[in-house]
């Protein structure tokens, strides 16, 4: 028991604070990207609809996706800068690089799984599982970044590449997302959460037993004192003189790249395209309806007084009244002939010569509102004519 306790209490630094922070930020942005991306890819499924609505609609979902992508790009460039510093300045061994040894380890592990070999392969600082995952992240980030750029900036892309690259980028972006998310769920979750719950990415430390089990070669190196030797200050400075300009170049080009990503082009208008542009309300010219031709009153002949039936009133009544009181005898009245006008209709004599007040025509017209209402002037002339004896000629 005491040995076991000792083994547990002995701790080895596995990940520095910077690496853990990188992992944390990458984890958050990756999860957000995968989530907001896949619900867009499968937008028609009810689950996606639920989450898209929860996030405030597809436009908001896209904004979250874009911002997560920017965060991931920032972490990635930070990682590149740190990596270059380690390689160029500190000249530490590139422990994440896969070598032929890793292939050998896979085969050894398979042999072990099958019971041919007694023990697992002797992994170095990173196992082939971790290396495979790291490679997948690098490949995935580069591919997603490139295809994401094409979709974010389709106009600029089509200037330099065939337009078909954009839907092809969309296809690759979506398929790669499925691959990445499934690989994380299958490979990453199995190795660091299911198999053993490895908390070193959060605590930064491994205990002796974990080291023995997962990184025996490293443990051996540490215990034999074969750690990295301190670098003389002068050499360090020399190397830094090379590194800093390089880092500056990378930073500047990355900043330009990020600017290009976000604000390179105005992809589309922000207004709604106009629908129908012609005037909506345009009447056709109506076909004229048939109208009665108003026959002009005949010029009074010789011996015909203008203030007489023949001279004025036959014409007036024909024009204004004959629709109802002509051939048709509404109410029994027709004003077509002098004689009939005097006779009147059902309600009494139409015209009583000399007595306008007793003439039903005048009585009706004076009430107003008659369908063939005469103007006041016309009515007065009729009254005057009747009071003058209503001469026929």
């Amino acid at each position, binding site marked *: 028991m005491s040995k076991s306790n000792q083994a547990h209490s002995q701790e080895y630094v596995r990940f520095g604070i910077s690496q853990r922070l990188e992992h944390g930020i990458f984890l958050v942005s990756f999860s957000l990207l995968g989530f907001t991306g896949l619900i867009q890819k499968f937008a028609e499924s009810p689950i996606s609809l639920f989450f898209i609505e929860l996030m405030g609609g597809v436009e908001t979902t896209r904004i979250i996706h874009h911002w997560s992508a920017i965060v991931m790009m920032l972490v990635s460039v930070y990682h590149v800068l740190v990596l270059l510093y380690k390689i160029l300045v500190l000249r530490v061994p590139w422990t994440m690089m896969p070598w032929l040894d890793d292939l050998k380890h896979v085969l050894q592990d398979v042999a072990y799984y099958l019971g041919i070999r007694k023990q697992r392969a002797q992994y170095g600082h990173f196992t082939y599982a971790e290396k495979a995952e790291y490679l997948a992240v690098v490949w995935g980030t580069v591919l997603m970044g490139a295809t994401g750029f094409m979709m974010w900036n389709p106009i600029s*892309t089509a200037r330099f590449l065939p337009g078909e690259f954009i839907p092809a980028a*969309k296809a690759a972006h979506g398929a790669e997302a499925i691959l990445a998310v499934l690989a994380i769920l299958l490979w990453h979750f199995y190795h660091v959460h299911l198999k053993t719950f490895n908390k070193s990415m959060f605590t930064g430390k491994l205990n002796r037993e974990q080291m023995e089990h997962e990184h025996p070669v490293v443990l051996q190196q540490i215990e034999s004192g074969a750690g990295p030797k301190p670098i003389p200050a002068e050499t360090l400075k020399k190397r830094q003189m090379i590194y800093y300009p390089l880092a500056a170049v990378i930073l500047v080009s990355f900043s330009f790249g990020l600017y290009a990503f976000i604000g390179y082009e105005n992809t589309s208008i922000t207004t709604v395209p106009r629908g129908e542009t012609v005037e909506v309300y345009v009447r056709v010219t109506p076909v004229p309806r048939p109208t009665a031709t108003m026959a002009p009153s005949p010029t009074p002949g010789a011996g015909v007084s203008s203030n007489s039936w023949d001279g004025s009133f036959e014409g007036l009544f024909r024009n204004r009244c004959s629709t109802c009181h002509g051939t048709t005898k509404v109410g029994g009245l027709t004003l077509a002939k002098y004689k009939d006008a005097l006779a009147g209709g059902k309600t009494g004599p139409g015209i009583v010569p000399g007595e306008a007040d007793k003439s039903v025509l005048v009585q009706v017209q004076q009430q107003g509102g008659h369908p063939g209402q005469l103007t006041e002037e016309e009515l007065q002339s009729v009254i005057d004519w009747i009071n003058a004896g209503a001469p026929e000629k």
Partner: protein
Amino acid sequence: MSFNHETSPRSAPRRAAANKKLLLLFCGLCACALLLLGLGNSPAAAAAPRQEASPTLGPLSLDDSYCLSCHGQPGSTMKLEDGSTLDLFVDPNEYSHSIHGEKGYACVQCHRQIGEYPHAPFTAKDRRDAALQLYPACYFCHSGEYEATQDSVHARAFDAGNKEGAVCTDCHTAHAVRPINDPATGKIRPDAHLWIPETCAQCHNAIYQKYRNTVHGEALINGNPDVPTCIDCHGVHNISDPTTNQFRLNSPDICTSCHTDPKRMDKYGISTDVLTTYVSDFHGTTVTLFEKQAPDAQTNKPVCYDCHGVHDILRVDDPQKGLHVRENLLKRCQVCHPDATADFPDSWLSHYIPSPDKYPMVYYVNLFYYFFLIPVVLGGMGVLVVMDFGRSMINRFRKNPGGSSEEASHV
């Protein structure tokens, strides 16, 4: 048209039963009328209206010949308050050939308040006012259609103060109402298809002039009844406002109700994949999501008519103006993407499903991922994970068979 578009087939038997009752009622009424009035010339009673409640028979003491003795003669007019003249002439020939005339409806069944001559005073500010006073008579028999119009864009324009907003008689006329449906089939009469755009054209002539030269309009004029007329997209009676966000978001449903129907499209060799290919693209995804989640919201992502035209819809393979011509498509793209260059239109798959012939790059990217990279990577990982898990299970069992197995997996 209303019969076809607004009555569900399920209600047909009920209606038949109702018609039977109505018929009996009318036989009774006929007999009464004959007895009381001694008039055999009331054909209105013989023809039961097909649809809704029968018109309450007004004072049938006035037969049409009485009215037409004045109104049947051209030139009968009255002065309105604004000085214009109202034509009081009703063409007896035209009326007798209208659906109402054919069925023998009498003037006074609509003009109920008119009474015998001399009429009660009728005043109207102008001719429009006169029409507006008279058209509610349609409600007596066609209350369903009348009420449907109350939600329409026409009624809303009217309520907002535009007195030209169409009312019943503007489309159907007052005295020359034509039957649009064939009573035998319940479908629009073949010759009536053409009447529809002509009717709308009375007020929307500029749009009609566009429509008549389109793929749909041209076919219609050439006698093809398969193509949509105005009402197929805009509806009848409760015609909605086509300028709203909601209409815009719903509009793909209108087009695809025909364009995804193989029965209609196969005849013309037109693809029915237009909806799925649209929805799977960025534009269509957004529009569909908006339609489902925020049907009133504004989106500028294109719907069918932004590319294919609103009323000026052309064949895509039109040699001059069709979207198959690259420059034409680019111009459409540039409406929303002003900076688009010559290669940009290829970023839209033109409703094609990628194949080795059409958009091969997309096809091969999908092939590479779904038939190679994903299966190989995940398969490889899966095999190793399963073997690793299997080995740890075996180890655990061997080391501590049947018991708890703390740290059993450690060799």
